[in-house]
């Protein structure tokens, strides 16, 4: 029901929003004193509340990084949990300032939906998970013909699933829910044989099941799922701030700037590091962007660099233990590459 409420709210907001009074997002954010960040309703490693109710995960930390860049304080974020169906309307209608919710970047979303994706914070692909104990002998997605498949509605996953089964001339019966928790509960209860979503998500969800060891993720990856944050179209300044926050996280990792050494690094002999950290004389890099000149220092102090963020939330420092793989920096054979800050 909530998505209808948001739909109507979105429609109403679009109707009542006075088009003349369109202040920039940066001004609105500064005036209210925090960033409203759209996250998932709970996906381990990306955005999920911990036992104290604080949001943890790469997506949540990304919003903190933007808050650090804008306010110099990574805590000035408020999180809005959104279902897959609610997310775009919430961003379009201005209910959230950033959508950082394991959302796949597609051309349709960049054009027809009026969004701007800022980059790919996590390169993912869609996979399948089954209960190996109940289904011995199934070790490939191509053996899944006739299965009941649990999937979340309103996602690219739902579309890829239909395409994959059609392309391989297999049949399936979809079991579709709106909320992630509902899909998890249905799979856990055995309503469906197969769970499909992004592979990173499958590893996170497996931990929450009754007996994680019984479940295996099948080897096939059936799609490209570049996940990243998005903002509304029509505000280039805000788009640049969010985009360069992402690049700053990558550049910091590439230059070896970490949460622990960022203050020492300010006095580094390297002109590049000094420039990135805003220590160059008469620098205007930060102010041109619309933030303070020590924005990168603030970002790294708040959440660390990209690598630290990855390890803490989904990598070796987390229960998920996902390898960096294609999410490693380009210097280490991965795909993460950022333009220079200069």
């Amino acid at each position, binding site marked *: 029901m909530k*998505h*209808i409420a948001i739909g109507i709210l979105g*429609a109403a907001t679009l109707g009542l929003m006075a088009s003349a009074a369109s202040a920039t997002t940066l001004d609105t954010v500064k005036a209210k004193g925090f960033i409203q960040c759209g996250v998932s309703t709970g996906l381990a490693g990306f955005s999920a509340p911990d036992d104290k109710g604080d949001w943890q995960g790469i997506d949540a930390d990304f919003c903190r990084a933007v808050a650090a860049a804008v306010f110099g304080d990574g805590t000035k974020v408020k999180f809005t949990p959104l279902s897959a169906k609610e997310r775009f309307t919430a961003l*379009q209608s201005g209910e959230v300032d950033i959508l950082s919710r394991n959302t796949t970047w597609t051309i349709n979303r960049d054009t027809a939906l009026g969004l701007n994706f800022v980059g790919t914070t996590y390169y993912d692909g869609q996979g399948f998970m089954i209960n190996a104990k109940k289904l011995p002998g199934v070790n490939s997605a191509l053996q899944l013909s006739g299965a009941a498949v649990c999937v979340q509605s309103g996602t690219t996953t739902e*579309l890829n699933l239909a395409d994959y089964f059609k392309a391989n001339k297999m049949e399936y019966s979809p079991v579709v829910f709106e909320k992630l928790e*509902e899909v998890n509960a249905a799979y856990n209860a055995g*309503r469906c044989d197969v769970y499909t979503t992004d592979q990173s998500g499958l590893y996170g969800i497996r931990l929450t099941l009754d007996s994680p060891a019984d479940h295996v993720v099948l080897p096939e990856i059936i799609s490209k799922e570049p996940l990243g944050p998005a903002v509304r*179209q029509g505000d280039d300044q805000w788009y640049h701030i969010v985009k360069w926050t992402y690049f700053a996280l990558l550049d910091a990792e590439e230059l070896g700037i970490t949460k622990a050494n960022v203050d020492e690094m300010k006095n580094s002999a390297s002109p590049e590091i000094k420039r990135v950290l805003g220590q160059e004389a008469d620098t205007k890099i930060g102010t041109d962007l619309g933030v303070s000149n020590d924005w990168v220092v603030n970002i790294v102090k708040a959440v660390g660099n990209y690598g630290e963020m990855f390890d803490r939330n989904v990598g070796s420092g987390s229960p998920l233990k996902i390898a960096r793989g294609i999410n490693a920096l380009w210097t280490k054979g991965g795909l993460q590459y950022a333009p220079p800050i200069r």
Partner: protein
Amino acid sequence: MASQEVLREETSRSSFFNDPKVRSLFFQTLVVIVLFGSVWWIVQNVIDNLQRLHIASGFGFLNGRAGFDISDTPIAYTSDSTYGRAIVVGLINTIIVAAAGVITATIIGFVIGIGRLSQNWLIQKICTVYVEIFRNIPPLLVIFFWYSGVLAVLPAPRDSYHLPLGSFLNQRGFYFPRAVWGEGSWLIFVALIVGIAMAWFVARKARQRQMATGQQFPVLWTSVALIVGLPLLAYVLSGFPLSFDLPKQSTFNLTGGFQVKPEFLSLYLALSCYTAAFIAEIVRAGIRGVSKGQTEAAAALGLRSGSILRLVVVPQAMRIVIPPLTSQYLNLTKNSSLAIAIGYPDLTATAGTVLNQTGQAVEGVLIMMIAYLILSLVTSAVMNVVNARMALVER
């Protein structure tokens, strides 16, 4: 003289403004202008904002390829079908669950409502407890009760309950044999229609005869014989063209047969049980609304208690019952949108998915609102016809 003239002129002018007709015309025009003005302003603003935010608009998206699958498809639908067809599939699913729910809720409601007025202490108390439980729980909880509390605890497909007549019950739903109509089976349908028509004719003739002569005729048994016997005869004559497709165990699920999914079952049962509690109260009020003198007069004529209820009380109670019953039918139809919580692909769910895949929230919500509006208007139009036929015909 002069002052008198001035006075008259003033009274006539002020009377023009005080004229009730002129006033009401003026204020009605004002309200219409304000109403249309604000609607126009909102619509204009929506269009402006959509353009400013670079969001696509218009209804052209309905012809696009949907690309997603739907679990319950009463009409042919694949992921290659259009968004428009996906919405139609959802609408039909809503109509199916609403129609099934209305019928069941009415039956349960009448039984419980009459049961509450029973002389039998136990029946009366059981019916009271039913009403008090179901009307005091939100419908969403009733749906979850059936979905998570009853159907989800059933065994996995491998260990299905075997029911009589080759049907199975497990957590994936209720499976029963599907009839496969062979060649020549049209004869059976024709026989069925002929049987029903003949039964109706017999009932009419019997009533006319009873009115004229007072003699009764065993209408019930004749009708049963006609409606069951004729198709059976046709079945034998056409050489047993009917076979059954039985559900069988396969790798993942039971295949074959006809499957009623737990999403549909729990929504249907929940809506029926929930609305039945309200209908029971309406029926009780209707029966109570018929004066006791009517029952006593009928008893004095020598009618038995069943006949009193059927011939005297219920026809009069229906006049009181039907208007509030219409509201309950509308409530049930609208409550069916709670289907989204358990993943039954009704109108709200499929239109919501379309809304999300295309990002066209304004159009999506508009389509949903219009569809529910039309559905409700049709329901109340039908019920108004029924009401008009039941209403007291005064001379």
